């Protein structure tokens, strides 16, 4: 065994089964006697349901049951809850209209489920669904926040007149106004953040089951099974927790979209209870496009007040955030506490004011998607900084340096609630510029020009916040759940270790990283550590995986539980070695008496704990099994610098990212190979957002990019080789010093790419460009703007 502890590039333990096709995903699970659910969904953006006739479907071959919204109403089932409550400027709570499991009265977006058909086979369920007759009265619909706010716009929910969910603010408006009044200069930028479809490789799926005693099991594609148990059990179906088991086995990617509690989960569980037969549903890809929560979709205005030297004096931001047709589980938190609190970024802007209006439209609900609020904040800020450089003539890099929070200023209190614990933005910037050979860029630009290509370089110096915490603060801000994490460490009698974690791995490699943390701390080889997640019946509790929280919060809980194991082990060792507990040291998997060669291995202590023949039984329980709940003191704050270099084909407008460098400060690195993979994936998604992806709706709310034929996912040839570097400062408030790496790639990269494109197009007088920078968009710019170069 080579070194396998913290910092080792251990190969991922889980990949063996994934590569061999032996993963165990929800759709791989089949329960005896199961029936199949198929959802008849709305094909209209907005319509009143006049009549639903399911008689023919109900008597079709193989059909076991047909359910509509009326069945849920009759059962007294309210609907899907929202996990976060925001209050508006005036103190009033957000509009929180009902979100029925199956539509009642109206459909509000294409994809809204109206009828569920359950049959012996999937085919029969689909056949029967075709016999359902629904009479609709079409209503005008809206897709964009701007349209939904216009006077006279169609109202999505009667509970939200004017389609406003909340009108929220943060920061000191008076101080900001005063700073603007005295500013030497103000730079303003209007920008949008494009709506994205998450598109996890594995579509969502769920199987509900109920035994004769009323014990339920739900197998579901979830990032957080305990949260689903809490939300669905307590708030939707009223099933007590001891009678509801939620299992999220192998999950093939989530990116946020599998955090939320969805209607299909509630339906299969509820129906399983009615029928006493397992009920299975697996989404088809086209259903995923219209029912998985989408991401982003902001329209914003940003203004920075500056002094004569380009120092940032005050920032004012106004954002309209699209919520879609219903509030998804954490939707209200995304454009508020995960967005506006990030608007200081890496800069010492002394005062900031932001207002955010959340708006209902006739579109798929929008919620957290890889980065969740931070990509929106970062895009706004890093585009604004480049616009300031453009308008003032100050070099982009110099402008950033002039405004950086210096490395000696931590802990640093921002004007928008957050307190950063550590960071060193100058170091990540310098390392990234060096790795990207920034000084060699003019030569590369010239070489490209000789080939008829426009070449540009762009940077983004970003900051984000992970591991949303602490619970008390989140609660004060509107969270309806705690945000701690749980680890149970079970040392088996022979010294191998089973870790039960409340976090969930759906591609991140926790089975390896968590095992490495155990190897580091307990000296047990990675092969002797099993990491169990995703089952409420096996794991005490947990909040799951999102917001890059797993290692920062879950890893901390793991360390705390191991601390208890070591403390108990020391007492056992003291007994065996006839020494005082205070003299026992634990190092490299051995308990020894300080200053002597007397020692016991970790395995010997484990065996003694379970075979307590020679044991301090009067004062110590047998066994070696400890649990810790860890509630973090603060967020963690990864940051860094991304550098993108692009080339534009002048004839076609096609943009290619030719170089990409990411230097991130993610705190302590547990597994550098996994870190690289996480950054690669995130950057690929960021390039996708910047160049290719757009969840398209027409004005009335019809989906115009409802499949991969029209929705452009980035592919391997859209993504260059990515140079990944890390420059770490340690998190000061968690035991591992870790910050989190799951989202940095998707947060830092989009503005770097757009800044590079704007740089490439500088001769065309381009100051800003919204995403995605499609070839057609670039071509229009090239057509319209006579290049200054040509005249020279």
């Amino acid at each position, binding site marked *: 065994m080579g070194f396998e502890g913290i910092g080792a590039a251990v190969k991922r333990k889980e990949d063996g089964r994934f590569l061999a096709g032996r993963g165990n995903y929800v759709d791989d699970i089949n329960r005896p006697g199961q029936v199949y659910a198929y959802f008849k969904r709305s094909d209209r953006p907005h319509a009143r349901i006049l009549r639903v006739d399911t008689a023919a479907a109900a008597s079709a071959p193989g059909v076991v049951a047909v359910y509509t919204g009326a069945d849920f109403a009759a059962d007294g089932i309210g609907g899907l809850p929202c996990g976060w409550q925001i209050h508006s400027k005036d103190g009033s709570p957000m509009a929180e209209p009902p979100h029925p499991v199956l539509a009642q009265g109206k459909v509000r977006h294409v994809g809204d489920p109206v009828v569920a058909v359950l049959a012996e086979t999937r085919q029969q369920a689909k056949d029967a669904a075709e016999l359902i007759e629904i009479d609709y009265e079409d209503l005008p619909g809206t897709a964009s926040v701007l349209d939904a706010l216009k006077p006279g716009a169609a109202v999505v929910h009667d509970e939200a007149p004017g389609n406003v969910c909340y009108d929220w603010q943060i920061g000191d408006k008076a101080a900001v106004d005063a700073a603007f009044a005295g500013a030497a200069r103000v730079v303003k930028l209007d920008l949008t953040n494009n709506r994205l479809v998450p598109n996890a490789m594995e579509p969502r799926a769920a199987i509900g089951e109920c035994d004769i005693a009323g014990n339920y099991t739900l197998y579901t594609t979830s990032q957080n099974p305990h949260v689903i148990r809490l939300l669905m059990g307590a708030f939707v179906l009223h099933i007590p927790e001891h009678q509801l088991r939620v299992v999220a086995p192998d999950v093939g990617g989530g990116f946020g979209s599998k955090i939320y509690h969805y209607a299909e989960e509630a339906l299969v569980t509820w129906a399983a209870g009615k029928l006493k037969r397992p009920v299975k549903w697996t989404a088809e890809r086209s259903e995923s496009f219209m029912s998985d929560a989408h991401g982003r979709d902001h329209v914003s205005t940003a203004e920075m007040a500056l002094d004569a030297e380009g120092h940032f004096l005050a920032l004012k931001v106004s954002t309209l955030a699209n919520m879609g047709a219903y509030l998804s589980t954490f939707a209200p938190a995304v454009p508020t506490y995960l967005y506006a609190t990030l608007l200081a970024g890496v800069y010492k802007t002394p005062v900031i004011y932001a207002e955010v209006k959340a708006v209902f439209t006739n579109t798929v609900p929008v919620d957290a998607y890889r980065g969740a609020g931070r990509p929106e904040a970062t895009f706004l800020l890093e585009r604004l900084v480049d616009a300031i450089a453009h308008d003032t003539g100050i070099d982009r890099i110099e402008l950033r340096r002039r405004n950086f929070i210096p490395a000696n200023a931590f802990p640093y209190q921002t004007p928008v609630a957050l307190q950063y614990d550590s960071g060193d933005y100058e170091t990540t910037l310098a390392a990234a510029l060096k790795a990207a050979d920034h000084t060699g860029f003019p030569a590369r630009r010239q070489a490209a020009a000789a080939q008829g290509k426009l070449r540009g370089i762009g940077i983004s110096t970003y900051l984000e916040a992970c591991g949303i915490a602490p619970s008390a603060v989140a609660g004060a801000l509107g969270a309806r759940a705690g945000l701690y994490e749980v680890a149970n460490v079970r040392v088996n009698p022979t010294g191998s270790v089973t870790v039960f974690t409340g976090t969930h791995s759906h591609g991140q490699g926790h089975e390896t990283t968590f095992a490495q943390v155990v190897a580091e701390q307990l000296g047990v080889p990675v092969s002797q550590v099993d990491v169990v997640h995703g089952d409420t019946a096996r794991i005490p509790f947990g909040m799951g995986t999102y917001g890059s929280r797993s290692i920062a919060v879950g890893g901390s809980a793991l360390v705390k539980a191991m601390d208890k194991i070591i403390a108990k082990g020391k007492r056992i060792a003291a007994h065996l070695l006839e020494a005082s507990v205070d003299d026992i040291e634990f190092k490299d998997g051995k308990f020894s008496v300080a200053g002597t060669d007397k020692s016991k291995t970790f395995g010997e202590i484990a065996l003694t704990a379970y075979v307590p023949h020679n044991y301090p039984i009067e004062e110590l329980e047998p066994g070696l099994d400890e649990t810790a709940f860890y509630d973090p003191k603060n967020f963690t704050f990864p940051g860094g610098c991304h550098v993108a270099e692009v080339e534009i084909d002048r004839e*076609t407008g096609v943009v290619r990212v030719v170089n990409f460098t990411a230097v991130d400060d993610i705190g302590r690195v547990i597994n550098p190979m996994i870190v690289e993979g996480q950054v690669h994936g995130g950057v690929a998604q960021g390039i996708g957002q910047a160049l290719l992806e757009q969840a398209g709706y027409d004005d009335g709310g019809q989906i*115009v*990019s409802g499949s991969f*034929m029209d929705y452009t996912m980035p592919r391997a040839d859209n993504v260059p080789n990515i140079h990944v570097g890390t420059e770490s400062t340690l998190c000061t408030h968690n035991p591992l010093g870790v910050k989190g790496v799951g989202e940095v790639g998707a947060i830092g990269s989009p503005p770097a790419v757009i800044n590079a494109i704007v740089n490439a197009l500088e001769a065309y007088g381009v100051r800003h460009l919204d995403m995605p920078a*499609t070839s*057609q968009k670039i*071509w229009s710019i090239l057509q319209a703007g006579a290049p200054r170069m040509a005249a020279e």
Partner: protein
Amino acid sequence: MYDFTYHRPTSVADAVALLGSDADAKALAGGQTFIPVLKQRLNKPSKVVDLAGLGLAGISLSGNALVIGATTRHAAVAASADVRRAIPGLAALAGGIGDNQVRHRGTIGGSLANNDPAACYPAAVLALGATIVTNKRSIAADDYFQGMFTTALEPGEIITSVSFPLPVEKSAYAKFNQPASRFALVGVFVAKGPAGVRVAVTGAGQNGVFRQKAMEAALAASWSPDAVAGIKTSAADLNSDIHGSAEYRAHLITVMAKRAIAAAG
């Protein structure tokens, strides 16, 4: 998909009989278009007649024609030494269709029967003046393509092969991908051979593949990218969608034509 009966005849005559027996019988070749259509329940065939057993796959080179059997896969066309030598532009075109999986299932006959307005093969077939051979007749390319998803094929008629006249002096295809599907947003095939100098455009036209005759005339006079650089295509009859306006497509026709001519040498 809906239920259907599956048939795998071993002769063209049997296949034609099966297809003729029922108005809702449909032929299946590589399934790259047809199977997704079935999965989405957009078609409800009574019988699916698989053409794979008819022995129609294969490439043969005679003195004055390159003949490609209808069920020849795109990958086979791309890899064929005969095709690469005789009509390099055709081999390159086949090698750029879809992805590896699609190229190892999709067939030339299926592509031509389907006549997707964004498909690649129609551009080559039209530009090279090929002949579509069916179970009952030969159809000149100029007569075969009749608009989006519409061809001269009659119900139940089976393409058996495609014959490309030789010698082809110059051939090349330049494709601008629709970014999501990677079909042709605009594809231009240029050729100089027995059918003369021809420029065929796919992806752009509202009525499917078409010839750009102004470019043909210019190239007949002088075969060079510069000859077509100033020739614009009217946007009036071109497609417009979220990936490209008619004007953008019109512009790309000229760019792709120039690139194809440069590639053809």
